[in-house]
């Protein structure tokens, strides 16, 4: 039986009921009874079939209770009741399916953004093919207004892209050669050619959809409890109704009892809220991976942030080059040549600065060595370069005299990371590198506090001075600097043992252990790095902290909504049962109230789809760490 047939049967039953009302006023009693029986049978058979199918799978379904009640009503000759109950049940199910779709609409609209076809270069010709036929390595052409169908890097052209499908961010991003583009995003303006490196189900977009789908299935604790409860509850009601019959000898009351005790609203009360909440988040670029995570997130009272890349932009810049001997640009050149081998973002920042100044980097470093977490050593033009922090200088017996040290501390107090560059064992200069605090950080933290976070702490591997400066600017409750990844884990453990519910937000691999340790791990998605998306509980796709505060208040709203629904559903059932036992509620009216309660529960959840936190202006000037 499909949905179309069900709605036809519902409509037919409704018409028959209307005819029966007409016949009643026309005084045609016999005809009326016949019409009612017909309506009961037409609507009742599909219900009975479903009940039977479920019973074969050893599942007690709501249909079973209704079927028993309807057969009972026919047996005692209550045809009005039997017809009304079957009709209300089908009609209710019809409305429920409709409104349920509403709670799922956020995911639907995401899926609808999925690209269908792509323009691919094949044998020198541009052909349009279905996305399923695009292969890795294909050269794809995307024009204005078209959707990107794959993940890949731009090889020619430039464009502004609307990446809302991935990040929830509606301001277009400008991209050109070597930039990555993602499936599901739309070229707003421009023309690009892209080499596909991820296609089909491997694209970030496809993985987001799959993660959201799984998240909506992942049950919360409340949900699991309700499921178990319903499994015991339904057979228990059957037994109880027998007890009611034994005591009252009133078949009508017993049947009414059966029908109104249906756990419909109860079973559905928690999941609809969760689905609507997760859908709302997904639309805004926040992936909350399941109902249990929603529940934990709502209970968070302590938030721990990593500094670089989380509270700050993670795009450091060279703010000053100070030399104690020799020429600035020459020092920058040889240091940058040595740092070419470095994967570290500070090293790469120096290389970038040299490129920006148009300094050619020609020499290959020799005998290069990376000292993890401290710096590098390499030979350039026969000179031994030692570039890194104080520890590296000390470890290599390089003297850091008072003048150098006081300059370095001065720079650090201004929020810079000071990098010592020594040539042949003598400090030749200091590079100052600074990052910027994210523009939305302050307001996002304020919102978190307003929604109920008690303390906000920063843990960073960076130096104490920079960390304290960020802490002061953002008004943090605690700042812990110069930590290794395992120190962060230990501190989070301690916070948890002290009874706090801890969320940890970070980016990159060095934060992964801390993210895993916290009650809730948040990762900055940055267009979806694999590890962060898989391991974190919550992913912020657009890399914006205000998404975190949205996720937090959304989680609170979702849990509130779920509680309202659960209390309402339980309350309704209790009131109805009391009404039945007191003889105030009858079969058809009981069914009507029951179906109404299910609808109200769903409609309450639909409110969550539209939930937005109050818009806060984040137009205040960007606080820059470095001041000069």
């Amino acid at each position, binding site marked *: 039986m499909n949905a179309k047939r069900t709605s036809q049967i519902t409509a037919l039953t409704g018409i028959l009921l209307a005819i029966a009302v007409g016949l009643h006023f026309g005084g045609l009693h016999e005809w009326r009874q016949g019409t009612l029986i017909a309506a009961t049978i037409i609507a009742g058979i599909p219900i009975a079939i479903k009940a039977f199918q479920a019973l074969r*799978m050893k599942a007690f379904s*709501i249909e079973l209770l209704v079927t028993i009640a309807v057969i009972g009503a026919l047996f005692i000759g209550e045809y009005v009741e039997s017809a009304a109950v079957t009709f209300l049940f089908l009609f209710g199910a019809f409305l429920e399916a409709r409104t349920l779709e509403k709670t799922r609409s956020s995911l639907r609209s995401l899926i609808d953004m999925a690209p269908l076809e792509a323009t691919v270069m094949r044998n020198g010709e541009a052909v349009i093919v279905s996305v399923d036929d695009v292969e890795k390595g294909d050269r794809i052409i995307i024009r204005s207004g078209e959707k990107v169908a794959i993940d890949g890097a731009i090889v020619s052209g430039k464009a502004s892209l609307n990446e809302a499908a991935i990040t929830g961010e509606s301001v277009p991003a400008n991209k050109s050669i070597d930039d990555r583009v993602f499936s599901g995003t739309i070229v707003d303006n421009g023309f690009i050619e892209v080499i596909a490196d991820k296609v*089909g189900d491997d694209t970030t977009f496809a993985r987001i959809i799959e993660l959201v*789908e*799984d998240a909506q299935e992942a049950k919360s604790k409340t949900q699991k409890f309700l499921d178990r409860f319903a499994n015991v509850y339904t057979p228990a009601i059957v037994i109880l109704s027998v007890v009611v019959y034994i005591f009252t000898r009133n078949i009508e009351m017993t049947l009414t009892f059966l029908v109104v005790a249906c756990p419909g609203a109860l079973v*559905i009360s928690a999941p609809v809220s969760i689905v609507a909440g997760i859908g709302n988040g997904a639309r805004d670029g926040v992936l909350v991976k399941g109902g249990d995570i929603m529940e934990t997130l709502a209970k968070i009272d302590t938030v721990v942030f990593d500094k670089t890349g989380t509270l700050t932009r993670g795009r450091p810049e060279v703010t000053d080059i100070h030399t104690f001997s020799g020429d600035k640009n020459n020092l920058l050149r040889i240091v940058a040549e040595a740092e070419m081998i470095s994967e570290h973002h500070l090293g790469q920042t120096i290389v970038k600065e040299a490129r920006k100044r148009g300094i050619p980097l020609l020499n290959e470093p020799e005998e290069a060595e990376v000292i993890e977490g401290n710096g590098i050593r390499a030979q350039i033009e026969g000179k031994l370069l030692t570039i890194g922090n104080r520890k590296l200088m000390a470890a290599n017996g390089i003297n850091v005299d008072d003048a150098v040290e006081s300059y370095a501390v001065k720079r650090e107090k201004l929020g810079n990371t000071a990098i010592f560059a020594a040539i042949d064992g003598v400090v030749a200069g200091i590079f100052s590198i600074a990052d910027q605090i994210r523009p939305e950080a302050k307001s996002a933290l304020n919102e978190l506090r307003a929604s109920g976070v008690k303390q906000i702490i920063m843990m960073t591997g960076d130096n104490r001075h920079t960390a304290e400066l960020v802490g002061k600017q953002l008004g943090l409750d605690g700042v812990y600097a110069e930590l290794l990844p395992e120190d962060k884990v230990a501190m989070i453990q301690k916070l948890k043992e002290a009874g706090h519910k801890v969320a940890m937000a970070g980016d990159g691999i060095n934060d992964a252990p801390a993210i895993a340790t916290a009650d809730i791990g948040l990762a900055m998605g940055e267009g979806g790095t694999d590890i962060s998306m898989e391991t974190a509980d919550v992913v912020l796709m657009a890399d914006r902290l205000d998404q975190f505060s949205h996720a937090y208040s959304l989680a609170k709203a979702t849990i509130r909504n779920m509680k309202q629904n659960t209390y309402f559903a339980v309350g309704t059932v209790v009131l109805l049962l009391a009404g039945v036992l007191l003889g105030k509620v009858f079969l058809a009216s009981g069914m009507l109230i029951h179906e109404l309660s299910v609808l109200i529960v769903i409609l309450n959840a639909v409110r969550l789809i539209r939930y937005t936190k109050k818009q806060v202006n984040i137009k205040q000037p960007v606080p820059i760490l470095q001041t000069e």
Partner: protein
Amino acid sequence: MKKAVFGLEPLSCPTCIKKIEITVGKLNGVEEVKVLFNSNKVRAQFDENIVKADQINEVITKLGYPVLSQKVS
């Protein structure tokens, strides 16, 4: 081992999940089956040497849930 995703009409009763999961799970060659209630989908892992995606499709349809789309990867 292959993975198939079947798109269904909107699912509205939680008992459907059990029905589909148990029946499809009993099929020879089906390793794992999961009903995604909220996205109206059935995901199945199966051994293509023993059972074909079309057979799974048929079983779901016979249970009373018309399959709207089928994707095998």
